[in-house]
């Protein structure tokens, strides 16, 4: 789960990790109150979950109160388009107005899970404020990495390697080390999957400050973080994806015209690939779970049918323990209940598959039985 920059900075503040002074605004009245109280310059920052806000015009530095009001008025309510939002962009419902900072150096710092080594990796660079992937590609020697064993935690020599590599000295090096320890503790405490600060700045006075904050939390760990769950911003969720989640379905909306409903995530991905190979585009990923039930199938139908781009549906269920006759009855009942008029290709396999196919064939509905996946692909191509 992603959280907003201002929410991540609240977590930082609680953990005594220095961030700039600032205030969150959602209305014009809040903007003018905030700006009246703040000294110039200020930074005005759109609060959306997608990255690339700066390049998309969602971040502005203002030297006068008037410029700050203009920028805030422009950004609040805009459709912000970034490389991560898609063409339609995301509406900015919240902005963060922050005190300007006297920047002496911009550093980069992140922590993430290293799957290959079963560790947490800390990445740092002197080239903050830039796209870190570009830095890694062009000047890999300027990227510092320390791999932390989760059972042992951050060791002193690892801290020294980072402060030395970043060429920090004296009190600045000490406060960096303290902040790094606090950030690592925060990463563990909140079950983060990513924590990124770009830039982490050194001020003219030698203080360290997190100018930006990006924090992703492991969705599997939300059961032990009710405070993070409360930060969820439903405004940024696709309404169909939200509806599917409330039914326990795993649904991701795509741009194609063939909806699909599959049991199991791997088979669901492979089914999307099969749709594409048949010459049509998948409209969604939908995993109704390894042990799909008739109720799940009905909920899945309702979700897929709400997508106006869908021209046909492919149901691919490998029933093992679930019997195909029960599944077929579920499909027929759901199709009748939802008043389905689109063509549906059904491919099912498992116990009682013959009875299941007969139920579909006798239903009088626009349902085609596919005998195997190759057959299903040719039926899909014909839609």
């Amino acid at each position, binding site marked *: 789960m992603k959280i907003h920059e201002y929410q991540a900075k609240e977590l930082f503040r609680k953990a005594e990790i220095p961030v700039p002074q600032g205030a969150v605004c959602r209305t014009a009245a809040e903007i003018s109150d905030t700006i009246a109280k703040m000294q110039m310059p200020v930074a005005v920052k759109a609060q959306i979950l997608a990255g690339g806000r700066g390049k998309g015009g969602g971040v502005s530095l203002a030297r006068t109160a008037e410029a700050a009001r203009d920028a805030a008025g422009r950004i609040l309510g805009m459709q912000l388009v970034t490389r991560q939002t898609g063409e339609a962009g995301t509406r900015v419902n919240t902005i963060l107005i922050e005190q300007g900072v006297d920047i002496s150096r911009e550093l980069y710092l992140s922590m993430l*899970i290293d799957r290959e080594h079963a560790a947490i990796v800390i990445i740092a660079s002197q080239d903050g404020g830039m796209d870190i992937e570009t830095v890694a590609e062009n000047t890999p020697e300027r990227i510092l990495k320390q791999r932390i064993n989760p059972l042992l935690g951050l060791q002193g020599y690892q801290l020294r390697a980072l402060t030395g590599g970043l060429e920090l000295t004296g009190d600045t090096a000490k406060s960096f080390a303290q902040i790094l320890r606090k950030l690592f503790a925060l990463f563990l405490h909140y079950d983060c999957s990513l924590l990124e600060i770009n830039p982490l700045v050194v001020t003219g006075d030698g203080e360290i400050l997190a100018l930006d904050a990006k924090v992703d939390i492991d969705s599997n760990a939300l059961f032990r973080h009710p405070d993070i769950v409360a930060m969820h911003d439903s405004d940024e969720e696709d309404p169909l994806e939200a509806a599917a989640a409330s039914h326990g379905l*795993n649904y*991701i909306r795509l741009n194609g015209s063939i909806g699909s409903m599959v049991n199991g995530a791997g088979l669901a991905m492979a089914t*999307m690939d099969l749709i594409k190979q048949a010459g049509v585009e998948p409209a969604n990923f939908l995993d109704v779970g390894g042990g799909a039930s008739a109720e799940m199938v009905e909920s899945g139908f309702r979700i897929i049918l709400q997508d106006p781009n869908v021209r046909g549906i492919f149901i691919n269920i490998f029933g093992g323990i679930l019997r195909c006759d029960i599944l077929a009855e579920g499909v027929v009942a759901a199709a009748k209940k939802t008043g389905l008029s689109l063509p549906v290709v059904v491919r099912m396999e498992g116990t009682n598959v013959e009875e299941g196919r007969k139920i579909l064939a006798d239903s009088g509905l626009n349902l085609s039985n596919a005998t195997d996946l190759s057959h299903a692909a040719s039926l899909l191509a014909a839609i």
Partner: protein
Amino acid sequence: MAIFVNRETRVLVQGITGKEGLFHTEQCRNYGTTIVAGVTPGKGGQSVNGIPVFNSVAAACRETGANASMIVVPPPFAAEAILEAVDAGLDLVVCITEGIPVLDMLRVKNAMKGSRTRLIGPNCPGIITPGECKIGIMPGPIHTPGGPVGVVSRSGTLTYEVVHQLTGQGLGQTTCLGIGGDPINGTDFIDCLRAFQDDPETEAVVMVGEIGGSAEEEASAWIKANMSKPVVGFIAGLTAPPGRRMGHAGAIVSGGKGTAAAKLKAMRENGIHVCESLGSLGRLCREVFTKAT
């Protein structure tokens, strides 16, 4: 022969008294698996369907001689259940549970270094040696005993699809296992490939991967350097959008890494027979494996 499990395997079930636990215990037992005990803290002394329940894995091992475990406990308690099974010195732990926090698994994985226990999963369908032993939630009847094909996969139902197609082509299986869809898991592709290479009954292998991480790339390089048996490979997720978690916690393309295209390229470059379309997997295996043997 087969790998990791056979008719000698004696299984205990952690979480046997839950609804899912009981259902799958019965399915495994009906298939012929020797289930000797169940473990649910606080319910020791009871029995379910004639299977004795113990308060701890250690007690269950002591009393019944169990050497393997199937874990079907809810995600908040699963990491601890794995550690308990490792501590009791079991040979094999199969963790079915989906949804374990990644940091929990990170700690478990590091804590297991140097232990004698093999972990399969979590978030996996389990392992089956057809006709001998099934520890997991896969449908038994789709499998065909006697080999010659070994199957290893990151997925559940996609593995059933593959096994179904093999059976349809008259190709039996030695052992089929899912290593799990989470970013941090126990046994990996290379562990399984090495075991299949060393197993005299296994003559060929099907490897099923998906987007996310780099396990398929590493396995491909290992195959080229170490394997004499033919391998057919498939990767799910060519059409998956970047940055989205596709059901499995580990199935995500992030920062341009972990794409299906990169994995297929690594497979091709390392001499693996790549299956382009899932519908033709069984036929491709028939062709490749007939030529090879």
